Each structure stands twice: as structure tokens, then as C-alpha cells.
């Protein structure tokens, strides 16, 4: 049995989406400008984008770059962050460098990296990798630092060597925090992907958006916004499901990570 209250709270995000679309509809009807189509018009334009082979290939390529960039960042950032969390010297070595890199707009490196590596997948993937790494490093660092000393001692008393403790105690113990970083990273990967494509204007989802803007196809612009927005919401929800399952043993945390942190 599902109680009405639980059903309401389950469907609340969906209701929120509908509410936002309604607000959009009303705003656009009130403003009555040609360049601001109603929500219904935009939604009607979605199938034509998703039905178009070229657009699909473009969006697919975007997602592939995002997946590769994010995976590379995860493989690189988690071990580095955990080492920083457990070994003081490693933390002192990397922290100032990371602090300086932190406020650099990573997507803004796009023109420079394009100069070196061309406009291909490599540059875009590299920019996504750079954009995503920092929050994952930061959260892995915090997670690794917070692992209870006594837990490591218990492991040592059982005969676990230092590398074993790293893999079998620090990694699982820090996992909730690491996954919080990965969730931020996922959203950030999408942001960096769209931004870099808007700046480079070669291919991808961000490019479709601005091409449509240039050609005054306003329905397409807003439809593409819906698609990218939906990608953000769906990726985040899917990852949250996965995270909840992976760390079902841990105490529940904040249900929204502070993005970028």
C-alpha cells in the first residue's frame, strides 16, 4: 500500500516539472513575443530534433565525450584525492596548486586547447576532464581524511598491509563522500560539455542550440533547452538511484549536493 502522502512526495519532482512548464506557458502567453514560444510549442518541436538523424548523432557524440571525460576524471581523481586525504605530505604538495586552478573557468580553456589539439573530440574531452576532476578530488580528499583512525587500526590488527587498508578500508569508508563528488562531477560534466560546444561551435548539443538561435528557429532553441535540461535531471536522478544503492549501508546524507563545491 502506498499512502497518499508518500505518493505525493514521490511524484513531487514530476509535479515541479509540470509547474515549471505551466509557468513558462503563462509567461510566454503574457509576453506575446515571437522569440519566446510557449511551452507547448517547444515541446512539440522536441520530436523533430530527436527524429533528425544528424541531431541525434550530434547529441550522441556529446554524451560520448562526456562519458569518456567523466570516466577518466573519476579514475584519476579518486586515487589522488584519497592519497591526499591519508598522507599529509601529498595534501600539502597538491593543495596550493588545486586552490589556484579552482577559479579558472575550465570551459574558457577551449579556444587555447583548440589551438593545440584542433577542434576534434580530444580537446572537448580534455576540457570536460579538467572541469570535472576538481570536485571529485576535493570530495575524495575530504572523505579520505575523515576515515576513522580506529577503523584503520582495527584493520591493521587483522593483518591488513597499508596498500590493502587503502583499498579495502579507506575506499569503501570514503565512498559516500566520493559519490557526492561524482554526482557534482556528473552535473558539471554536462555543463562543461554544453559550454565548450557553445564556445567552439563545431558540433554537439550546444552547437545545435546556437545554430537554431542564429537561424531564428526559436521553437528549436527552446526544445533543445528542454532536451538538455531533461538530460541533466535524468542523469542526476539515475546517479542518485545508483548512489543510494551503493551506499545503502551509510546514514542518509543531504539529498542535494552543493554543486561545484
Amino acid at each position, binding site marked *: 500500500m502506498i499512502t497518499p502522502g508518500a505518493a505525493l512526495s514521490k511524484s513531487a519532482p514530476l509535479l515541479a516539472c509540470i509547474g515549471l512548464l505551466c509557468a513558462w506557458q503563462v509567461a510566454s502567453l503574457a509576453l506575446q513575443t515571437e522569440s519566446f514560444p510557449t511551452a507547448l510549442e517547444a515541446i512539440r518541436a522536441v520530436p523533430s530534433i530527436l527524429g533528425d538523424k544528424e541531431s541525434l548523432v550530434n547529441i550522441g557524440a556529446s554524451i560520448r565525450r562526456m562519458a569518456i571525460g567523466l570516466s577518466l576524471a573519476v579514475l584519476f581523481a579518486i586515487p589522488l584525492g584519497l592519497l591526499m586525504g591519508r598522507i599529509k605530505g601529498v595534501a600539502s604538495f597538491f593543495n596550493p596548486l588545486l586552490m589556484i586552478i579552482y577559479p579558472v573557468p575550465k570551459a574558457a580553456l577551449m579556444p587555447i586547447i583548440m589551438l593545440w589539439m584542433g577542434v576534434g573530440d580530444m580537446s572537448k574531452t580534455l576540457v570536460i576532464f579538467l572541469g570535472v576532476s576538481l570536485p571529485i578530488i576535493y570530495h575524495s580528499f575530504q572523505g579520505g581524511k575523515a576515515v576513522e583512525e580506529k577503523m584503520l587500526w582495527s584493520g591493521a*590488527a587483522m*593483518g591488513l598491509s597499508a596498500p590493502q587498508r587503502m583499498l579495502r578500508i579507506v575506499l569503501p569508508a570514503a565512498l559516500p563522500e566520493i559519490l557526492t563528488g561524482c554526482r557534482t562531477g556528473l552535473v558539471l560534466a554536462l555543463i562543461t560539455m554544453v559550454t565548450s560546444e557553445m564556445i567552439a561551435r563545431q558540433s554537439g548539443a550546444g552547437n545545435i542550440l546556437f545554430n537554431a538561435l542564429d537561424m531564428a528557429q526559436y521553437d528549436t532553441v527552446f526544445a533543445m533547452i528542454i532536451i538538455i535540461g531533461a538530460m541533466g535531471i535524468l542523469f542526476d536522478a539515475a546517479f542518485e538511484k545508483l548512489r543510494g544503492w551503493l551506499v545503502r549501508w551509510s*546514514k542518509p546524507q543531504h539529498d542535494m549536493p552543493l554543486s561545484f563545491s
Partner: protein
Amino acid sequence: MKVVSLRSDVQAEPAALPGVAPAMAMIHIDHVSQRFQTSGRQSHLALSDINLTIEDGAFVSILGPSGCGKSTLLYIVGGFVQPSDGAAKVKGKVITGPGPDRGPVFQEFALFPWKNVLGNVMYGLRQQGVKKTDAEAKSRKLLEMVGLKGYENFYPKELSGGMKQRVAIARTLAYNPAVLLMDEPFGALDAHTRTRLQNDLLTIWERDRKTVLFVTHSVEEAVFLSDKVVVMTRSPGSIKVVVDIDLPRPRKRAELLLDPRYQKYVVDIEKLIDDTGEDEIHA
């Protein structure tokens, strides 16, 4: 380095038991001092010239005011902390690091939160290379012994403090260490749970008589459980006196609490602590 000789005048009392043959000694703490670096160039002497011998199968409690370094002493025996001076030995061998011959039980439980109860107890056995089915059978038996049958698949977050500590004790007993190192194990529990765990610990201990080093700040707990109570002074921590608790075993709580000998031990030791604890006000 010279601190050792300076404190030698206090050494008469602890009675390093020179007569006891080293072969009989399970743990031998030999002129151990511990200095901690505080801010800048300052350092703080936490333990000063500790000498203590613990025989095989003895239940020894270390008692003292908070901040007297009693936990640090336990960590040194565990091999988690290296002493600045002197050495601790187990079965005649100098302790250089943690090992499965000395199993810790912490006040903070330190269970692995990503493993369920059974997984926690099996962890050490699997680490020792015990086959999975054997490890599981042994762990289930241990869990039954500590009164947690039926909780095998629970995660630590679903357990109360007392249950967590029962799991932690089972987890350590599982890999059968020669020495149990208990660091205020019942300090975070409520009075009722605490009493029950003391009783259960005593029952388990009287069955196989492992060597136990037990740190606590409760006089009643120390007298109730131990063969010997080591009373420490604070800042720098040193041994004030070692009291032999000459009470019959197996001990029953209901009888013991009424026993005038038990009551006298408690009152006497409390007096000793009062003498050492006067500077607590200045802390």
C-alpha cells in the same frame, strides 16, 4: 632521554616483578615514555617511564583520570603508536606494529559500516586466509555467543550502541588474538547496557581466559572485572600503584556488590584516585 632516570624515585611501588620469569609474561612494558609534539617547539610528556608486566591469562585494568595517557599506553601495546622511549614486548618480542596477536576493541566501536554484522565478524578470519564457509560458521557461532543471533544481516547503522560493541567484541574474538586490548569499551554506553555487557564479557572471559588489557575510568568496573588494577597519575602519566584484586572467580555481580572485600577495594582505589586527581581542577 634523561627523563627516565629522573622519575626513578616513583618506581618503587609499581613493582616491575623482577622475579617473574620472562617466559610467563605475555606483555612486558619496559621504561616506556611518550612525548607528543604540541604547537611549535613545545612538547608534552604524556607517559613517563612506565614499567609493567602482564602475565598470560591475566585480566588487567588501567585506571586513571582522563588525560593520564592510559589509552596511549594501550595503543603502544597495540602497536598503533610508537613510544618515544623504551619498548613494549609481547611474548618477548618488541612490538613494532599492529598484529593479529593483539586484538583491539574501541570505545568508538570502529565497525566497518559497509559490511553487515556477519561481514564484520568474518573480516579478520577471511584476512587470515580462512575458507569462507568455515569463517561464516565460526562467525555465526560467535555472534550467538555474544547474543546477536538473528542480526547477521543488519548493517551497523541499524544497531544500538550496545549491540555495536557486541559485534566489535565478536569481530576481535573471531581471529583469536592472544591479547584483548579494550579501550574504554563500555564508555559510550548507558548504565544499564554497560552492566549487561560487563557481565557478558566476564562470562566469555572466564571461559577461555585470554590476556586482557582493559582501560577504563570506572573504579567499580575495574574492580569487578580484573585480577589487577593499575592506578595511574596524570600529567605526566605514570603508574602510581598496582592493586591485586583478590576476589574469587567465577564472579557473580549480585554477590560481589554485597561483598565487603569488593566494597573496600572500590573505596580504597577511589581514595588513591582522589589523591592523584586534585590537579584536575587546574586542567
